[in-house]
């Protein structure tokens, strides 16, 4: 079957009244959690996992897709109106977006963000539909050694490239892999890290781990650091754009999409780098460079498009290879596993209808999001007035409910609290949570591939390098790992370059960055950037 007819079948599935209803629920929920402080799409999907066991997997994934894209739209609304970017990928949007809003152009900023997200999301999803089957075709020809190497690359890349401290990233990855080890070994039936507790024999339920890290850890962390002063929201009417705004927006949208998708599709791309690159590009190309830092519409249009295109791109390795590279994709992948669906290159052939319905629902969700976000932006902003006690108590309540309902045993709640405390500690000491989740999810699969590989070579480690692709990938892995040391060496030899290298990336963020944006984590951006910029 070719892409087109598969996709049409997908639309047919996704547009049945029931599935359409779930798409609507998904985008509404997604936008809501994107707007609400302290909640995000990854947490929401994790919280919903247990509830969706009773659903058809297709319906559940259609809803998750809506939440995934919806969170992005909602996030940009808050970063524009409040200047409190919830995720690092919307930091750049907040720079110009909030300035525009303060200058009385909130409506235009919201409009260019929403329409740009729609354009980028639609193009990105189309690229996903075209690219994913190609990647699959390539991937099914790979043997265990190559597949093992690709998984190693994904793990290491996410750990080493994203986040500001690689050491802390690896610590987090190690903890995740260790958590993934708990339970009976599938091949030999040996108990690992169960300490004789029979309840641990089945391993830690991924739902419990994800809910603990994303929901409980986050709720406790926010509770410990509640903002004491109410923020001032910029009043806004219905978003709209004038002719001039359209003229200045459409090119940034397309360029942002072009940056976003490939970065999202890379194992460690993420949305942070393309949004930043898009910002810099727009600033350079703009006919109104003087407006940058004071609310230039291009600076909202481009990064916002890049952000959404990256979100679509991320789904390519997730669906085609079973490799998630951001938190929401990781939790969605966990959802596949808990439905008994094996993620990986076989997914397209074994679960074709589901995958194509999911892709079709991304198109539908995007359109729905545009429709609900343009006229209803003022209503979404009202959500920010929900008193915090209810918000965070609600997260804990539903986290408990979800984790408990998986196995109906109080022991899971003990794990939930313990892992929640771990999540709290990680946030406190700057250990990124994404490597941990990836370690938990990919650890067992990596081990399986490793064992298959060496089984084929009868225990000879040379078997790891028996396929050319594996060799190439190990070289890339080596470069990623060694790069910062090389960078340090270059820096030592050429001190002038070093200071320049650190100073320039933070310069375009905003000239008066630190004083004007007390909330912007500019420091983490600039400290991490030099090594990140070079990796692709």
């Amino acid at each position, binding site marked *: 079957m070719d892409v087109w007819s598969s996709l049409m079948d997908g639309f047919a599935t996704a547009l049945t009244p029931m599935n359409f209803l779930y798409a609507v629920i998904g985008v509404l929920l997604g936008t809501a959690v994107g707007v609400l*402080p302290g909640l995000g799409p990854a947490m929401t999907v994790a919280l919903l996992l247990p509830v969706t066991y009773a659903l058809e997997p297709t319906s559940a994934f259609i809803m998750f897709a809506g939440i995934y894209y919806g969170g992005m739209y909602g996030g940009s609304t808050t970063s524009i109106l*409040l200047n409190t970017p919830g995720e690092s990928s919307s930091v750049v949007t907040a720079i110009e977006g909030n300035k525009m809003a303060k200058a009385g152009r909130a409506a235009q900023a919201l409009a260019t963000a929403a329409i740009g997200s729609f354009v980028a999301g639609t193009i990105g999803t189309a690229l996903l539909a075209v690219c994913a089957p190609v990647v699959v075709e390539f991937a099914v020809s790979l043997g265990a050694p190559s597949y093992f190497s690709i998984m190693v690359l994904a793990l290491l890349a996410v750990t080493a490239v994203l986040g500001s401290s690689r050491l802390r990233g690896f610590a987090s990855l190690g903890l995740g892999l260790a958590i993934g080890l708990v339970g009976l070994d599938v091949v030999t039936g040996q108990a690992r890290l169960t300490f004789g507790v029979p309840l641990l024999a089945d391993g830690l339920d991924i739902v419990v781990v994800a809910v603990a890290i994303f929901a409980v850890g986050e709720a406790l962390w926010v509770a410990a650091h509640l*903002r*004491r002063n*109410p923020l001032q929201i910029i009043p806004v009417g219905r978003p709209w754009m004038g002719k001039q705004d359209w003229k200045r927006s459409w090119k940034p949208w397309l360029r942002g999409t072009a940056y976003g998708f490939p970065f999202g599709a890379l194992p460690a791309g993420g949305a942070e780098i393309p949004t930043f690159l898009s910002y810099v590009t727009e600033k350079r190309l703009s006919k109104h460079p003087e407006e940058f830092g004071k609310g230039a519409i291009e600076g909202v249009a481009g990064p916002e498009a890049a952000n959404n295109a990256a979100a679509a791109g991320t789904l390519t390795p997730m669906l085609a290879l079973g490799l998630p590279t951001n938190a929401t994709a990781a939790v969605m992948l966990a959802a596949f596993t808990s439905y008994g669906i094996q993620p990986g290159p076989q997914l397209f052939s074994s679960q074709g209808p589901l995958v194509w319905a999911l892709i079709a629902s991304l198109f539908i969700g995007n359109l729905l999001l545009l429709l609900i976000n343009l006229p209803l932006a003022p209503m979404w902003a009202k959500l*920010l*007035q*929900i*008193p915090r006690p209810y918000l965070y108590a609600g997260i804990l309540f539903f986290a408990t409910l979800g984790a408990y309902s998986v196995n109906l045993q109080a022991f899971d709640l003990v794990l939930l609290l313990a892992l929640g405390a771990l999540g709290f500690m990680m946030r406190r000491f700057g250990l990124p949570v994404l490597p941990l989740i990836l370690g938990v999810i990919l650890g067992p699969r990596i081990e399986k591939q490793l064992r298959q590989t060496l089984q084929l070579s009868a225990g000879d480690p040379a078997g790891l390098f028996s396929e050319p692709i594996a060799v190439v990938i190990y070289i890339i892995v080596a470069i990623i790992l060694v790069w910062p040391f090389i960078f340090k060496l270059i820096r030592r030899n050429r001190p002038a370059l070093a200071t320049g290298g650190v100073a320039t990336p933070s310069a375009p963020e905003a000239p008066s960055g630190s004083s004007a944006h007390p909330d912007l984590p500019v420091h983490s951006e600039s400290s991490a950037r030099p090594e990140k910029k070079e990796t692709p």
Partner: protein
Amino acid sequence: MTIVVGYVPTPEGEAALTQAIHEARKSNTRLLVINSSKGDALVDNRYAQDSDIQSIEDRLATQGIDHVIKQPVRGHDAAAEVLDAAEENNAELIVIGLRRRTPVGKLIMGSVSQRILLEADCPVLAVKAG
């Protein structure tokens, strides 16, 4: 002696402020403007923005009124903050704005103005918007 006015950035709040200014000029007393927030949500529309406060500041200064503007965020509701301020400063008058409310809304949310009217130890002047 002091006049305490409960200010919120709404037409009712503006009406109350205007009336309070009038009263303060008439009796030549100090004006204490209270704009509070419980601070329990990320956003509170009843908490005035800096620019708002600045324009009130300017307005009071040009009219030559001895004034203090306070924006307490201590987790107390607006009624408690106004009553507190009135008691502390031995207020001679409290000025508040009234808004129209349905009986049901009053039942669910309670009423700040009602509490002030019932619990204040000094006269309360309640104004309606425009």
